């Protein structure tokens, strides 16, 4: 039966996370924006303790522990881990999208390990998140010459058969939270590299490099338009040796692109999560506009003909429509993920829509708020800067459109480039 009732546990999650967003994120938002690369330790320590107390070590939903109670009634409950993650990410991003990206525990890296790793690998790499110290992970995919076109990556992984180690060489850029994963904590990064440059896509695999591994070095911290609380780094791999067991997926190059496609499937889960973050920022901006209008005694009249609406009313209503539409696409994408339904199409749709909507809403909000919108006395201008990243990382809006288009047309990459 079609239902849009948010599951009760998620309503509770939202209430709890909202408190964090209000009390631990908003008050330091401006401070962290103006002091790039300052680390929000208070938030990090709090989240580490809190998630540990909740018994969850990782934001990778498949790894979140199920309740052990043998209550047969409870077993029947449909899975909601991805939906819970969505609510958390949306609410935290409503608080501060940059600080949210500093959340400790398993994130994108853990998601990759969770999707493609063996049980042994999961245990080895994911158990660290429940320790005493907050630990971070990161995903290293982009290279100077390979952004959206991930098949063009040139980082190589060569097997040293004598020592049974992979030797990685190359340069990765735009690694979100890379410094936290490698320098500020004993975390790990998941690196995409090629076993055989000639083999193209089918040679690409992901590898886990743990903090402290010789030959893996953070070389640059980027200065950015927004999400400044989050570090974005360059990483150089120079004869970086890792154990054979650190490869995710098959170590041999077959003719098929199954390995590559498997890695790309991670996106089906992560893209709607990025969408959720975009939605949080957009909601913050929309609520700011609504509050300021209410303070000024401007009422938004719903249900009247457009011909009678003020421009302001039309704009605000349009923002609400777009935000809700994007929200629902994201909910459906993650509901499908929870129910193990193939969701590649709607996952990319949600990312396309949310990335665009967040960008448009924050830009529109700054416009509508005039001098208030442009002022650094308020956070709106910051959200305008923060929101834009959502239309870029985890696949630009255009790449996601391409994925959607190939899907609806039934085309392979070679048919629609």
């Amino acid at each position, binding site marked *: 039966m*079609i239902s849009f009732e948010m599951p009760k546990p998620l309503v509770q999650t939202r209430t709890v996370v909202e408190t964090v967003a209000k009390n631990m994120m908003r008050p330091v938002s401006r401070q962290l924006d103006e002091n790039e690369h300052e680390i929000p330790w208070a938030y990090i320590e709090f989240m580490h303790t809190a998630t540990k107390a909740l018994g969850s070590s990782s934001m990778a939903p498949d790894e979140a522990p199920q309740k052990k109670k043998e209550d047969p009634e409870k077993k029947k409950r449909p899975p909601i881990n991805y939906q819970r993650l969505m609510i958390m990410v949306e609410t935290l991003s409503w608080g501060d999208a940059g600080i949210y990206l500093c959340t400790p525990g398993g994130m994108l890296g853990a998601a990759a390990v969770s999707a493609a790793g063996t049980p042994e690998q999961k245990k080895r790499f994911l158990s660290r998140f429940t320790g005493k110290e907050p630990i971070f992970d990161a995903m290293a995919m982009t290279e100077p010459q390979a952004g959206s076109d991930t098949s063009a990556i040139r980082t190589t992984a060569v097997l040293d058969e004598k020592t049974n180690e992979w030797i990685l060489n190359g340069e990765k850029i735009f690694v979100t939270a890379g410094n936290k994963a490698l320098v500020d904590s004993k975390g790990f990064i998941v690196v995409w590299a090629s076993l055989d440059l000639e083999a193209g896509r089918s040679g690409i695999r992901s590898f886990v490099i743990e903090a402290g591994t010789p030959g893996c070095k953070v070389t640059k911290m980027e200065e950015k338009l927004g999400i400044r609380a989050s570090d974005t780094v360059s990483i150089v791999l120079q004869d970086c040796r890792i154990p054979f067991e650190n490869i995710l997926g098959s170590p041999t190059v077959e003719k098929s692109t199954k390995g590559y496609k498997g890695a790309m499937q991670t996106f089906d889960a992560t893209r709607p999560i990025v969408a959720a973050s975009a939605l949080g920022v957009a909601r913050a901006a929309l609520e700011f506009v609504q509050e300021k209008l209410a303070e000024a005694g401007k009422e938004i009249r719903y249900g009247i003909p457009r011909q009678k609406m003020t421009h302001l009313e039309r704009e605000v209503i349009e923002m609400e429509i777009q935000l*809700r539409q994007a929200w629902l696409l994201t909910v459906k994408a993650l509901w499908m993920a929870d129910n193990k339904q193939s969701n590649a199409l709607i996952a990319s749709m949600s990312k396309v829509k949310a990335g665009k909507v967040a960008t448009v809403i924050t830009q529109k909000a700054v416009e509508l708020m005039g001098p208030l919108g442009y002022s650094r006395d308020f956070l709106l201008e910051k959200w305008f800067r923060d929101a834009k990243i959502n239309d870029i990382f985890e696949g630009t809006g255009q790449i996601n459109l391409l994925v959607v288009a190939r899907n609806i047309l039934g085309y392979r990459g070679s048919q629609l480039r």
Partner: protein
Amino acid sequence: MYSFTPTEEQQMLLDAVKRYAEGDIRPASREAEESTELPPELIEKGWELGILQASIPEAYAGFGDYSVLTGALAAEGLAYGDLAATLGVMTPNLFVLPILLAGSEEQKKSFIPPVIEMEWKAYTAALIEPTFDFDPQALETKATQKGKDILLNGEKIYVPYASEAQALLVYADLDGKTQGFIVPGDAEGLSVGERQKTLGIHACPLYSLKLEDVKIPAGNQLNGPDGHSMEGILASWHVALAAMAVGVAQAAYEYAIDYAKDREVFGVKVAQKQAIAFMLAEMGTDIEATRLLTWEAAWMLDEGKEEAYKHAFLAYSGAVDMVMMVTDRAVQILGGHGYIREHPVELWMRNGRGFAAFTGLAMV
């Protein structure tokens, strides 16, 4: 819990609607448009699906429960076939559902059963008025109390099947509030004008209507002299139109995909050009987004959720823009062929624009 899967019953209805929309409506749609006539047997066949009857409780001779969501699912499925035929089949909804939603027990018992019998009959409603900024909450048509009677005066347009209407629900302003009034088709002072010519939905018989001192008993006011709220009715109009807009858009979108995958250009298919493929991707995304918002609004209305009325409006408002964008692009993707009446996309584009003006023409 969230869920996006219709119930088994809803699915059965949807399958039946789909068979009718694809097998009966679509093949008849161009001819109906050009001849400006909906074949009565097409309407009958749609009526036999029992969509309206299934949303009326047994107490009023129906065999189901009222559900905006089920109605919206059916409306989308029908409009996927053709909008004019959908409005035709669903015209009696305009009379019955407001009575069900807002009428008195007595009105429900006496007015609903005759309408939902086996045969489709022309029961309709008159809401829209000839002003550019027409507002259902601020009508020019006036109702005035005179003793135990009510007098109706004003001018209506876009009244479906007015020429053969057995009875109509006429909306008029009573002391500053919009109220519905049940008016027999042969009431004195009621004069049906010429068949109206519109940009689209040519097959749908729309008429103008003049009301000059039309006298009805005060008991014919919807819910009697205590009157009724318009919110639920307004929300039902909004959701019905939003759902139909999704259906029309889906038709145009699929047609454009098929064409683009078939048509060669510069040695490849049109669909292999990003300029086209990206348009289609955005169309598909916005259709699905609008569909979800419509379902959510319908579900909220069924569940009596706070803000359900607002959501219905948001769904409708979003759908108005979405369907214009999608149908316009479908014409664009077909290029010159899209402009030719051999293809249906030009019809869907004309129909698509209508959703901005159709408030009150559809209910679920």
